[in-house]
């Protein structure tokens, strides 16, 4: 299942792709059009492709802004600059992998955690010093955690397949 999330003004919406890949693009365009009528912000999709890329790039932009806000000393739960820099650096790689836009939260003043919600559970990811740590908490049953060394060129490919499953 693939989830795309986006913000429209003060609404936050997410759309999860069902199992039929061929109808996905059509479904999302229909969803986007229905969002337009549901909010007071009119959306007129000029084309499916440009609408989709706007939604996705807007979500990525919000993630980027949020990570930077965590490093502000006045932030409610701020992180140190190293944590924010590591997160931004890794986030740029995530963007190039075309993974669904994650959500983020700060942890312990020393890390930014990327999250994805799945029907099967939740995935958490953080990056530090060349290593990506992936944590999976299933809805039921045992959690697992794995450290992935980014110096192995196959790791990013595997990670992107996993995050887009």
């Amino acid at each position, binding site marked *: 299942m693939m989830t795309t999330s986006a913000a429209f003004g003060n609404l936050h919406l997410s759309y999860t792709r069902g199992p039929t890949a061929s109808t996905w693009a059509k479904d999302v365009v229909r969803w986007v059009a229905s969002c337009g009528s549901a909010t007071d912000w009119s959306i007129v999709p000029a084309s499916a492709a440009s609408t989709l890329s706007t939604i996705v790039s807007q979500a990525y932009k919000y993630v980027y802004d949020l990570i930077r806000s965590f490093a502000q000393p006045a932030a409610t739960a701020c992180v140190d600059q190293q944590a924010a820099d590591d997160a931004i650096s890794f986030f740029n790689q995530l963007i190039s992998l075309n993974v669904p836009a994650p959500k983020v939260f700060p942890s312990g*003043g020393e890390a930014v955690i990327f999250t994805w919600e799945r029907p099967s559970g*939740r995935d958490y990811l953080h990056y530090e010093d060349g290593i990506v740590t992936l944590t999976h908490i299933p*809805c039921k049953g045992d959690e697992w955690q794995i450290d992935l060394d980014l110096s192995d060129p196959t790791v990013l490919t595997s990670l992107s397949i996993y995050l887009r499953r």
Partner: protein
Amino acid sequence: MNPGDTIPNSEWVARAVIFPTHLPQQQLSPEALFDFRGLDPEKDAQFFADWAHAYAVSVSCLHAGEDKVHKDGLELARQQNENRPLPESPESAKFGHMRAYLGFYRFLAGAVAPLDNHEQIETIFWPEGTFDNHANYIVRLAECVNRRDRTKRRTRITGLLWRALSGPVRYLHSDDTPHANYFNEVPLDALPA
């Protein structure tokens, strides 16, 4: 119960939801509700219990009843508005640039078991100022745990805590609260998912 006492694993504790700080809007993950803060080894020495690292999240004890938890949540939002006013924005104009308490999620103090003997989880009863029901949910880590592994362990605990949450127990603002309708209609995820 005395300050410094351990809350038993079988006791329920509550985590207050403050809008807009904790809401999963614009890509903020809902686990931000558990904003573990690193404790200071000097100022917060009493919580380290000879461990090298400690992180804490504030919770309320539910043994005093839900109304008391609501009362403390309202007071928390009030104090935060007074001490740290929200930056004004076109968005925040819709709710008067003020934080609001929305309710709480509950979990058992013993919801998450430590992974191994390099970590310890303990909830310490610790009244603070007007919050006489306050406790600190504390994660302690051993000296040998490096920075990345500290994050790894906190992430596991945060994820398992999220899975263990139930609620929300919603607080509905009365009509005489400014922007009551707006706050009462803010959606909160029903948990467990």
